[in-house]
């Protein structure tokens, strides 16, 4: 029973990441691509935390935190660049 729930949630998250990657490839302009990349990053963070919970490794959570920090700085830098140039 628990295995079915684990597999179902992982497959749903994978499908969500693939759909966001389709928007990242197709998006008409830069802002669409940035939004899709942000969404992919946040879903990846929650997947990393999920894998850390299954594997019982505390140190994977630090990877998720650093990934979130770098993604936030990157998105703000791209928005600043779109607004008035670096």
């Amino acid at each position: 029973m628990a295995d079915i729930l684990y597999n179902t949630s992982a497959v749903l998250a994978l499908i969500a990441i693939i759909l966001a990657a389709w928007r990242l490839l197709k998006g008409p302009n830069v802002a669409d691509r940035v939004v899709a990349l942000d969404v992919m990053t946040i879903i990846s963070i929650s997947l990393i935390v999920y894998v850390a919970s299954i594997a019982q490794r505390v140190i994977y959570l630090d990877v998720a935190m650093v990934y979130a920090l770098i993604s936030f700085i990157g998105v703000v830098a791209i928005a600043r660049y779109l607004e008035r140039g670096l």
Partner: protein
Amino acid sequence: MTRELIGMIFILLGIMFDFFGVLGLVRLPDVYNRLQAATKCVTFGSAGILFGVFIIQGFNNFGFKVILGIVFIFLTSPVSAHAISRAAHRSKIPLAKESVVDQYQEDNELKD
């Protein structure tokens, strides 16, 4: 065992929120609509997944780090969404043709 089941229910709820947010990201017409669907649903869904992991793990160092992650996502995700939408409007990315009103533009014209 009961705690694990409740946590799995929270995780499934969060992943459903993520999935519907990404569906909005694929289906909606322009960047502002996509931004509001994607940001709200994905933030809440990821917080749901992290809260489910916290319920499964309980009050130890793992659980407190996960709570720290929830706080971090809730702080940073609206800031980045606001920055993207403001930059998109300032770099003159057009609205969808079904849009009714653009009050930010009207406000800027009033200021000049």
